[in-house]
């Protein structure tokens, strides 16, 4: 029997800097597997965010650009407009995408830019040491909400997938998770679908991934999975919020 579990070509050999139990690594791997399966590494450009994944370019083997905080969707727009033949994805955290970069993601989605976004929702600012994010849960303690997120003061956590799905422009919008194998299988399928829609030139595609940050949640990796499943997933419900509908020519869309 040959090797059944090997490193995808699109993934580099470098050891990652992510904490034990962090799901950034899982998300990277899924993206890399999909890029291998679609055979697009030679014409793909990834865009790293500012957040824990700021060094994502070290873990992939294809062309990468590094954005300023929140601006990856604008950079992706710039690339796709001048080089529609390239496959482009942004990889962004919740502080990056849903706070400082909310304007850029909404407008890119609304223009129907033909790139893919992988959105890592871990309900906290990981990189800067655990401050409150727009996705932090009510009552969740962070270093800037030491008494728990007070929704009367700072509002409710933003459901980004639902928000983007409310736009009238056709898009593929889905929320999945990477905290357990049973979710990971579906997450990978969604990422693949998202890239396929891009390659077909159909629409903007967006995969939100409910993730963990054990370090800044103050939990062990096992506790973090449990907390994510019991607290995040009931609020950030998993599933497809939008797809571009029937393809031109009449065949059914997935």
């Amino acid at each position, binding site marked *: 029997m040959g090797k059944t579990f090997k490193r995808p070509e699109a993934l580099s050999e470098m050891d990652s800097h992510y904490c034990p139990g962090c799901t950034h690594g899982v998300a990277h791997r899924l993206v890399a597997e999909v890029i291998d399966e679609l055979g697009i*590494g*030679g*014409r*793909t*450009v990834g*865009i*790293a965010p500012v957040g824990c994944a*700021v*060094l994502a*370019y070290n873990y992939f*083997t*294809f*062309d*990468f*650009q*590094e*954005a*300023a905080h929140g*601006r*990856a969707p*604008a*950079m*992706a*727009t*710039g*690339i796709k*407009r*001048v*080089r529609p*033949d*390239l496959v482009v994805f942004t990889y962004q955290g919740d502080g990056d995408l849903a706070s400082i970069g909310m*304007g*850029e993601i909404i*407008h890119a989605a609304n223009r129907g830019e033909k790139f893919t976004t992988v959105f890592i929702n871990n309900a906290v600012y990981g990189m800067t040491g655990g401050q409150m994010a727009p996705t932090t849960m009510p009552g969740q303690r962070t270093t800037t909400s030491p008494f728990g997120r007070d929704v009367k003061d700072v509002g409710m956590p933003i459901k980004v997938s639902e928000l983007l799905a409310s736009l009238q422009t056709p898009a593929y919008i889905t929320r999945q998770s990477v905290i357990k194998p049973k979710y990971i299988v579906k997450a990978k399928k969604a990422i693949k679908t998202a890239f396929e829609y891009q390659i077909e030139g159909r629409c903007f595609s967006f995969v939100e991934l409910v993730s963990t940050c054990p370090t800044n949640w103050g939990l062990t990796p096992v506790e973090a999975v449990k907390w994510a499943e019991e607290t995040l997933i009931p609020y950030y419900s998993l599933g497809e919020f939008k797809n571009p509908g029937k393809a031109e020519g009449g065949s059914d869309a997935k």
Partner: protein
Amino acid sequence: MGKILMKGNEAIGEAGIRAGCLNYFAYPITPQSEVAEYLSHRMPEVGGVFLQGESEVAVGYMIFGAAACGERVFTTSSSPGISLMSEAISYIAGAQCPAVFVNIMRGGPGLGGILPSQADYFQATKGGGHGDYRLLVMAPASVQEAVEMVMMAFPLAEKYRNPVMILGDGLIGQMMEPVEFPENLKSEPSKKDDWATNGMDTRKSKKRNLVKSLFLDPVKLNENNLILKEKYERMKREEVRFEPYNTDSDYRILIVSYGTMSRVCRTAIDNLKAEGIDVGMIRPQTLFPFPEDAVFQAASKKSCGMALSIEMSMGQMVEDVERCVHGKCPVKWYGKCGGEVPTPEEIMDVVRSNLS
């Protein structure tokens, strides 16, 4: 091709196309929105890309993304918009990508006004965004010169892999003048295989490229800054451009002025000459690199008793003039910065009062 009458803003847009740049992203702002309006129909005609972004912040990064693929790309804006683009400009300089930014300046600070100004001199030449970077800054004094500078900007941006800025004032954008688009300023994009992120398949080496400005290792960051510094030193050696005026005479006063303001000064100098008063002028065409030596030499002339920096700002370029004059003569500033352009008569009065 002969001359045609064109509004500055439209000519600037056309110059981008004639230079071989078919990618333009922008956000409307007075007094330069006509560039976007013009290119919104012109780019589709030539098979180019036109996109109105949602803000100057986003446009700055659209420029970055496109530039990082090695494609020629430009944008135009005015002062408040350039402030918003400054974050991206810093990233583009740090990541060493070529791109062209046009600032048709209006009065500030804040929302300021919509009339011509030169108050973004510091922003353009000393930073604007964060970190140790410089822009190659060219300042046109006519629509024709704006066209030529835009056309020159693309190969220069590629030569240095650094953003180039055309710093015009509202008048340059708004006035109509006869222009032609010199064939010899057309250029081919330079090679980009060793740095651009345009897909590994495009390269023989199949090696991947990274475009980034992050260097967590202090030694590496210092190295990157030294690379940038070397480029800026090279600009100082190779790209200084200026125009002397009446500097063969035995002038007692030397004017340093650029852009629209320098045209008014030129009229004042002609009128004063008729009165028997000689005034010399150095008109910087590049603001960075600044014509340091030319200003020093001109101020060192025996007859010269004073240098006057005349600008539509409250005294910004004057700091560079002082630096370059090096104590050879006193340096004074004259200017206005509300949107009014000082008249030749005003300049003549300033000169006369400084002679008496």
